[in-house]
């Protein structure tokens, strides 16, 4: 059960607490469940679903942003666990260090209807990784890569190319880390050359924004043949907080910035910047990790089987063309 609630999830929290209490009560009288309590639980469950539907019917941009950063939201490693088999994590950029805010490794994805060998698809998975506990958050640098994270990714992209293994990226970062060492070691170059490397890859690349798509630090993993966003993820040139303090010169204007920035999956789909929106389970991805993982898995498998038929040059050319005309600024 979820235990951390956003403000607008509070009505759900109350119902869940009540249901939990009744269940505990019933458990205490395990031998003879009290029918009236069962009924009450059932009606509360129905009510809860109704409340969730109500709350999620007209989410504001700010609420979507909060969901994209929900403390219980599944992260890259959660999806790796639920989608892949035999995941082998590879570490390090071979230059300076291993950046733990970026996960990279090879794995199988089991095809649903396949048989034996042909039933498995090899993939490279590279994604930003946030932490859940305070300790993990620090360990993962809050999902904010240093240059080494991008350089590790580049190394793995090229390795995947050698074996013609499709690349899957999971995007979930507030942005590249604004640190002294990051600048010293070329954060700009690291991001630019990662985008360059992805542009040139002669293998299928599929990107999925699973949470926060924060600026250049996100885009570095987002140059793909197919780009998808989870329903309650965001993708933006700047965080609404940053936008409020820089452009509005007023930190309290975050919600205004959230609206004006047009950073939701729906906005980006309407602008033609992403290829599809992956619908989330009722109440958001954190309420049903298995279900959202299955959705993502089938999106990946579909995209891979589509792209696998294209030859290497076409994969590169298609991706480059896509990013050249993305903003429809062509005459």
């Amino acid at each position, binding site marked *: 059960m979820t235990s951390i609630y956003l403000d607008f999830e509070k009505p759900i929290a109350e119902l869940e607490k009540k249901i939990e209490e009744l269940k505990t009560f019933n458990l205490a009288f395990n031998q003879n469940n009290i029918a009236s309590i069962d009924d009450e639980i059932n009606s509360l469950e129905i009510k809860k679903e109704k409340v969730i539907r109500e709350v999620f019917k007209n989410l504001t941009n700010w609420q979507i942003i909060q969901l994209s950063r929900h403390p219980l939201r599944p992260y890259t490693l959660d999806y790796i666990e639920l989608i892949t088999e035999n995941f082998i994590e590879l570490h390090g950029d071979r230059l300076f260090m291993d950046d733990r805010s970026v996960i990279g490794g090879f794995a199988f994805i089991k095809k649903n209807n396949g048989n034996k060998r042909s039933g498995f698809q090899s993939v490279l998975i590279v994604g930003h990784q946030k932490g859940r506990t305070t300790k993990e958050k620090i360990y993962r640098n809050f999902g904010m890569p240093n240059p080494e994270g991008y350089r590790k990714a580049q190394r793995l992209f090229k390795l995947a190319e050698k074996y013609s293994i499709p690349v899957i990226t999971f995007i979930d970062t507030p942005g590249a880390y604004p640190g002294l060492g990051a600048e010293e070691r070329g954060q700009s170059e690291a991001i630019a050359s990662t985008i360059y490397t992805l542009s040139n890859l002669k293998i299928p690349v599929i990107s999925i924004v699973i949470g926060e798509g924060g600026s250049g630090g996100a885009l570095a993993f987002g140059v793909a043949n197919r780009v998808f966003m989870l329903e309650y993820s965001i993708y933006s040139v700047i965080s609404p907080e940053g936008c409020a303090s820089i452009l509005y010169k007023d930190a309290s204007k975050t919600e205004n910035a959230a609206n004006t920035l*047009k950073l939701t999956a729906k906005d980006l789909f309407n602008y033609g910047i992403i290829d599809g929106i992956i619908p989330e389970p009722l109440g958001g991805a954190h309420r049903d990790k298995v279900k959202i993982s299955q959705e993502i898995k089938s999106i990946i498998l579909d995209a891979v089987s589509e792209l696998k038929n294209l030859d290497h040059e076409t994969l590169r050319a298609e991706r480059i063309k896509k990013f050249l005309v993305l903003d429809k600024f062509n005459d």
Partner: protein
Amino acid sequence: MSLFRPRSNFKKEQVKSGIPEGLWVKCPICGEIVYKKELERNLDVCPKCNYHFRLNFKKRIDITFDEDSFSPLFEDLKPDDILEFKDTKKYKDRIKEDQEKTGLLDAAVSGTGMIEKIKAAAVIFDFSFMGGSMGRVVGEKITRTFKYGIEHKLPVIIFSSSGGARMQEGIFSLMQMSKTIAIIAEYNRTDLPYISVLTDPTTGGVSASFASIGDVIIAEPKALIGFAGPRVIEKTIHQNLPEGFQRSEYLLDHGMIDMIVERKDMKNMLKNILSIFLNV
């Protein structure tokens, strides 16, 4: 001996739009009060500390290309307010104001010209138009310039001076980073050189895209170059930044750029690089 005064002495306003009006100008780096005429005679370089002031596009063209050889390309591209963006001001109004102020339609000019008789295509940023920020027009101009370079077999030089992506164009401005890099990936299938010249400042989405992947990267002295702004970094790491942090000399020391070239020598250096790569 330190080359830089403490950061608190920096006056951002004065650097904002090239040389301010009036007879005297204060150097934002060393604080020296310089007679404006003298500064202009000196290619807008501080005579005391060698800080290279931000240059408007006309002056950059003048000092870079052979006389009357520059002819602009894609001049008619103008910005539109695709997000209907409004912060303290409407984006539409900001565009109009800066168009009137600078005589430009957007923050970069592109064209071709001769550098000591070698023809090159170029993009020149002008910081006085919305901080040289990169939105759809700037991204498109860069893209078309590289395409033009491919079609006409011309080297490309970009003079950056930009705070980064233009926030008022939201996700579209972010996508200019991948767009400009995508065209460079195409351009690099030729044997033509791309020279990236970083001038004060080159930061954010410009620094983290086309500007950092030139075949040769040159910086003007003391230009601010980096991904994150110094104030953001200070706020994040809760410590003061070292003197000279994110300036050209610092980047050279850390292996991020090929060389620092003074304004007076820039044309000659560009010519030398081009003639070697093009073997002319």
